[in-house]
């Protein structure tokens, strides 16, 4: 039995593919590099679309269905583009007993969007986290990458407004 490694070219000229290629090279293009490669792809492009999944599948020689199975098993991976801003509401135990559900409820009501979704105008994606590990600040949320703690539902919406309509 013999195999050859034929170099699979990235789907486009986009420079960000260089980062993805670097991760695969670092891990020897082994099939086991799948999760690390998906991480880099999502970091570079914001989400994983069919084009990138097909490329990673071919470059690592992992079957398509397996790539898709992995990408949908892990909740960290997004298969859809995210909104311009995002808000991650922590639903860890400490946040939950301090009213995280009310915060999420207020956001969902104000922006007419369900957790895991993006508003129609593509301005805001609302996500939940299992635990941010910022339990000392409970209830907490991450708005565009910044952790905000000891929140009330009203304060959260206020802060979101500042980000969305500055």
């Amino acid at each position, binding site marked *: 039995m013999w195999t050859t490694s034929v170099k699979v070219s990235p789907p486009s000229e986009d420079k960000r593919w260089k980062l993805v290629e670097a991760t695969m090279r670092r891990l020897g293009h082994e099939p086991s590099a799948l999760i690390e490669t998906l991480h880099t792809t999502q970091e570079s492009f914001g989400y994983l679309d069919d084009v990138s999944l097909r490329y990673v599948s071919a470059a690592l020689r992992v079957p398509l269905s397996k790539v898709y199975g992995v990408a949908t098993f892990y*909740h960290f991976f997004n298969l859809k583009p995210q909104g311009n801003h995002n808000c991650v509401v922590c639903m860890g*135990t400490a946040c939950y007993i301090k009213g995280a559900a009310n915060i999420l409820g207020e956001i969902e009501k104000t922006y007419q969007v369900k957790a895991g979704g993006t508003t129609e105008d593509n301005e805001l994606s609302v996500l939940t986290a299992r*635990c941010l*590990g910022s339990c000392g600040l409970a209830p907490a949320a991450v708005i565009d990458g910044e952790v905000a703690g000891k929140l009330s539902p009203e304060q959260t919406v206020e802060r979101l407004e500042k980000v969305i309509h500055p």
Partner: protein
Amino acid sequence: MIAEELSKTAAAEREAQAQFEHRINVCVAASCLSSNSDKIKSALETEVKKKGLEKSCQVRGVGCMRLCSRGPLVSTETQGEDETQPASVLYQNVTPEDAPALVESLKGEPVKALECPTDTPFFKSQVTIVLENSGKIDPERIEEYIAVEGYATLLKALTTMTPAEVIAEISRSGLRGRGGAGYSTGLKWTTVAKANGGSRKYVICNADEGDPGAFMDRSVLESDPHRILEGMALAAYAVGASHGYIYVRAEYPLAIKRLRAAIRQAERNGLLGTNISGTTFSFTVELRLGAGAFVCGEETALIASIEGKRGQPRPRPPYPAESGVWGCPTLINNVETFANIVPIIREGGDWFAGIGTAKSKGTKVFALTGQIHNTGLIEVPMGTPLREIVYEIGGGIPGGKAFKAVQTGGPSGGCIPAQHLDSPVDYESLIQLGSFMGSGGMIIMDETSCMVDVATYFMEFCMSESCGKCVPCRVGTAHMYDLLQKITRGEATMADLDLLLEVCDVVKNTSLCGLGMGAPQPIFSTLRYFRDEYLAHIEAKQCPAGVCKIHEGNEEVIA
């Protein structure tokens, strides 16, 4: 780096530090960082420069100082007559605007308005082994770790101890795994050491801390990353492994950044890599990022994930000690377990065994959160009574509310009510109470929490974290969640409660892995201690805590 060079580096670093008359330490662990402690640090640096004190006053970032609820925390140290004990002041709720006052205070009196007393039970009742360097050293500089004798234990073991002697010391210490069930660390190491793996064995650090309400491991990784690397290297030497993985949650970007930096620094200094310290021992460490799947805390699922697959557990036996990653013998311990290794080898197993209880040795780090005054990280000897943790260290319940329960052990754990507050915290006692040590989350609930709602919360967690491989966990958790929701909506009958218990029994006893087996635990424990709350929802259609929204729709229609 050989031992001699190591002590030279340590001496040089200590000397450099002694040049400064004052030091200002700013907590740069995640919790304080999210309250802008980085801005405080730069404000302090600007202020020090403005006053021309760069030569006498050092501003540096340090790891977690534990009392997260008062963050951002800053401490100042001033060299006194006695060089080993600098005068130290801790400040709480600091803002960047406080920088001038803090710098000014170095020459005179502390800033009273910001001072955080440290002679309180929160600090005095703690015994720091795992967290001994946390809040004291800059986690991003290997020199500071070396200055507090870092890596000296590894080099000592490599040159003066056999692998069997290292394992014997760990066995003597009585250390048990800090990630959950509390399996003897010495036994685990012995099994892997004996395993016939051909040429390759692996050491894995499980840093996929997934219990909601737990952040001990993250804090250790952010505050003292080299401690974990040194502990893993000692383990690798003991069991005969040459390669290691740290499986860390992608949700912990700061921990990942510091671990990456720490690995680079250790490699550059020859403390990781080939022929460490001129011996035949070689050990490399790679990071692997989790991707938001709680089940990957289960060791066989974690291994699948490292191999790039869906994180689904497989039946054990064979255990990873025989057949783990890539089918090779694999040692898996969690972060806190590895953090205990260096002090045990340094001070001896007997020293460690002198702390704690008969069956649970040493200390345990808990993340104390919820409805309690002092939230943050605590490290206490095993066997400390819950009451001391809640009322003395934790400072009691705010707002004059009544204590209701303390939840330990995450989604496989349970809620312990007031009548058992005098129980000691150790592996066996918690299991007797229907809970579980778990990784160390400790969430305090007061009278405003509804225990049926809490059970529903955990069941939602288990349902959406179930990997879906085995039938009882995949389908059973969904049924348990639906039945609990029916109860919280006031629509359930006593027959539903019986059915719920039957499903719990099947899921507990037939699931493939610990996630499924433990999933019914929150129901069992809340039913055991708070059955009246379940009955109130079912029979009186009322939620005593006023949390559940029970619509009396039917009656309105009739009216």
